[in-house]
């Protein structure tokens, strides 16, 4: 329980850090902290494979990508957060989030799911267990994820392909002259 509290504090701290950090790099680092805390949770929840995936994919690949882009886009630029310019945005957002988060948390805490008291099945959540599932009956999901990653690859190609400068269509009068 104490472990849980500590981990929860770390995770929440990371989360809050993400949204309060002034610089994007800090946000990214806070997010990594959050992700790592979650990975530990996964281990605690007997999801070893997921914990590994979380660390490798999220903390490793995704966040590195983030950091890379952050540095790419903020290099030599003013990377501080601009002033809030939408009236009431923060207050409303805060209230709404508290309502939603609070509501969900209360529901989640007060109404636990019907837990099965027996011991965990063999290979629950470890590499073998996941492998059997993902390469077995649930292979189709894996294939779908593969397709999504393929989409991402195509997308990066498309979005950053060398563009022939497309001029806006000339107006009629220009064409006539």
């Amino acid at each position: 329980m104490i472990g849980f509290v500590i981990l929860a504090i770390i995770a929440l701290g990371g989360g809050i850090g993400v949204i309060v950090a002034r610089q994007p790099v800090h946000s990214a680092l806070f997010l990594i902290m959050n992700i790592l805390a979650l990975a530990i949770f996964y281990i605690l929840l007997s999801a070893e494979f997921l914990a590994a995936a979380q660390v490798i994919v999220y903390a490793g690949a995704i966040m590195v990508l983030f950091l890379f882009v952050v540095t790419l886009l903020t290099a030599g630029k003013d990377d501080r957060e601009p002033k809030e310019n939408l009236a009431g945005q923060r207050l409303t957002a805060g209230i709404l989030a508290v309502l939603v988060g609070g509501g969900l948390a209360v529901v989640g805490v007060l109404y636990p799911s019907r837990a099965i008291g027996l011991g965990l099945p063999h290979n629950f959540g470890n590499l073998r267990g996941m492998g059997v599932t993902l390469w077995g009956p649930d292979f189709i999901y894996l294939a779908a994820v593969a397709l999504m990653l393929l989409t991402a690859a195509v997308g990066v190609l498309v979005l950053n392909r060398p563009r022939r400068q497309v001029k806006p269509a000339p107006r009629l009068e220009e064409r006539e002259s």
Partner: protein
Amino acid sequence: MIPLNWIVGLGAALFAIGAVGVMVRKNPLIMFMAAEMMWNAAALVFVAYARSFHAMSGQVMAFIIIGTAAAEVGIGLAIIVSVYHHRHRLDIDEVSQLKG
């Protein structure tokens, strides 16, 4: 024994924090990170419930979430880069030409 329902509460909190992040931060990268945090919160709840049901299906779902997040981040960052490549600041509010 980890109190599973408290983990769900933690997930809800993280979800709310992520939502706030999307709504209040002006840096699109940070907004995107906050959105990722919402996904993560969901994945955490899935895993927690999977543990409670002793069923792998929740974990599979979490795995799919992680994989999809990777793809989404790839595309998202590409879009952000292409949009902000020539801009001075990372300010989402600058991208508001389309309206009305």
